[in-house]
């Protein structure tokens, strides 16, 4: 996997064979430039993998229509959005688009789902507020509520906890954990927050410095010493006691 840059092909990761399971929270870790975002972009079909295929329940994702994909995968990315003058309810309502008709009108059932999604994401208290008036953490919750309203079995999040303070980070991670465990969703997120991912994720995908993707539970990966291959910098080492890196 990699990307084409003009005439050059940059291969980031090769020979991937990854499985995302229902009911699990999976954290994708790797240093900057390792290919986390590129991998996620390939999984959401925003970019074609150079080779290989992505299948959901045995169906090839790339061969599906955009519409079918939108009912399978919900996305929360870090892109800037222009939605400051939408209320939280309106924004979350956009998540219903794959299920609504030509003009995107919401019926009563859609509205119930929108309210439920806001309640699940813990943002219902701000339902009628403008997106512009929310804090970063609240905005992220609204974006997660939007993905929930999409009612997809898979949710992919690109660094959902970046820009958040510690409290909001933990809240967001716990929310995602609940979604996976209680709603049976497959949740995949990329993160720079090592210790929290190690504590809360059911499974880790580690992009190592030699461009491998190692998978397993925190216990397995820590025991195998895989955590030592996450960063190129030889001066920092993984400390199993604090589940984080230190000098």
């Amino acid at each position: 996997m990699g990307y084409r840059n003009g005439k050059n092909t940059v291969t980031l990761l090769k020979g991937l064979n990854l499985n995302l399971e229902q009911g699990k929270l999976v954290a994708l870790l790797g240093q900057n430039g390792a290919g986390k975002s590129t991998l996620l972009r390939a999984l959401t079909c925003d970019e074609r993998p150079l080779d290989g295929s992505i299948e959901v329940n045995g169906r090839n994702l790339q061969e599906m229509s955009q519409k079918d994909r939108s009912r399978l995968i919900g996305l929360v990315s870090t892109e800037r959005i222009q939605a400051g003058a939408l209320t939280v309810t309106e924004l979350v309502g956009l998540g219903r688009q794959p299920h609504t008709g030509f003009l995107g009108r919401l019926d009563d059932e859609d509205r119930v789902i929108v309210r439920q999604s806001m309640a699940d994401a813990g943002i219902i208290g701000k339902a009628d507020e403008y997106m512009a008036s929310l804090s970063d953490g609240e905005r992220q919750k609204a974006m997660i509520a939007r993905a929930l309203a999409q009612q997809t079995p898979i949710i992919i999040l690109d660094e959902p906890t970046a820009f958040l303070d510690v409290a909001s980070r933990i809240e967001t991670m716990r929310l995602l954990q609940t979604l996976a465990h209680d709603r049976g969703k497959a949740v995949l997120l990329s993160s720079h927050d090592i210790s929290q991912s190690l504590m809360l994720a059911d499974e880790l995908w580690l992009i190592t410095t030699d461009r491998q993707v190692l998978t397993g539970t925190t216990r397995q990966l820590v025991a195998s010493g895989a955590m030592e291959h996450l960063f190129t910098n030889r001066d920092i080492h993984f400390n199993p006691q604090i589940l984080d890196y230190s000098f």
Partner: protein
Amino acid sequence: MTYRRFIFTITGLMLALVLLALGCLVFGSVNIPVDKIMDILAGRGSGNKAWDIIILQSRIPMIATAALAGAALSISGLLLQTTFNNPLAGPSILGVSSGAGLGVAIVILAMGGTLGGLFGETLGSNMAILVGALLGAGAVLMVLIAFSAIVRSNTMLLIIGILVSYLTSSVVQLLNSVATEEGVHNYVSWGFGNFSGVSVAQMPVYAGIIVLSLVGAAFMVKPLNALLLGARYARNLGINVSRTRNILLLITGVLTAVVTAYCGPIGFIGLVVPHIARISLGTSNHTRLVPATILAGADIALLCSLASVSSPHGIIPINAITPVIGVPIILYIILNRRRIQYFN
């Protein structure tokens, strides 16, 4: 709450539309008594042949032309602002109007006629000019699409639009240098902008194309709303982004081309009106924004039209009025961008 605000705003805009249209009917360079106007409208005739002609073949077509032009340019601006994710985009600032103008100039010159917005009454020459405007606007939009893929900065895209305008106007100047004196005069007066260039005979084509395009824009509210979240989210919501973008730019191109061909390159309306609609509705939800933009655009154009006949010393060009209305609004928006939700 927002729904009540929508109803309130739409009602206000419609009321303003009726009042402004009546204003444009009553006021003009020739004074016609109101009761006589009523007689003419009722089909009885005023007893003054000239007055009958002024009302039926000049003022009423002008009202329709202005209202449709305002709506068309405003929707063009709205679609451009959403498509390019750029609140300062608009058909004139991005050079789409000048592209259409260049197309018109080339066609008129190629047909051996005079250069400018003088339409023949034949359907053929009308169509040729429209096609010219459409190709010109389309060419500029293609340039913009190409550059928007390369330069990610909003400001840079605006500057490219302005550069394109300079380039097209220099080509037009070159064309002018080989045109007849009368042609140049016509071109210059076309450049002032005016809403009285559509005759009763031309109205069906002009109105038909604009109304169809506006209906087309109204059908795009769902993908437009998805685009507020950016291309990646829109794709994730099941929207075919490149196809949507092409449709939106096609609608923009057609609307801008038609208005530019018949009324001249009219500035500011397309840039300003979507902001008026957003601020008065307090939303960037296109389901409500599209109807409000259409009505507000018609209102502003009629207001300009009314202002153009307000001087006792003759008609003031439309393009002398639009900046007077537009610039203060743009400055207000720029100065208050921290307090305006849709910038945040």
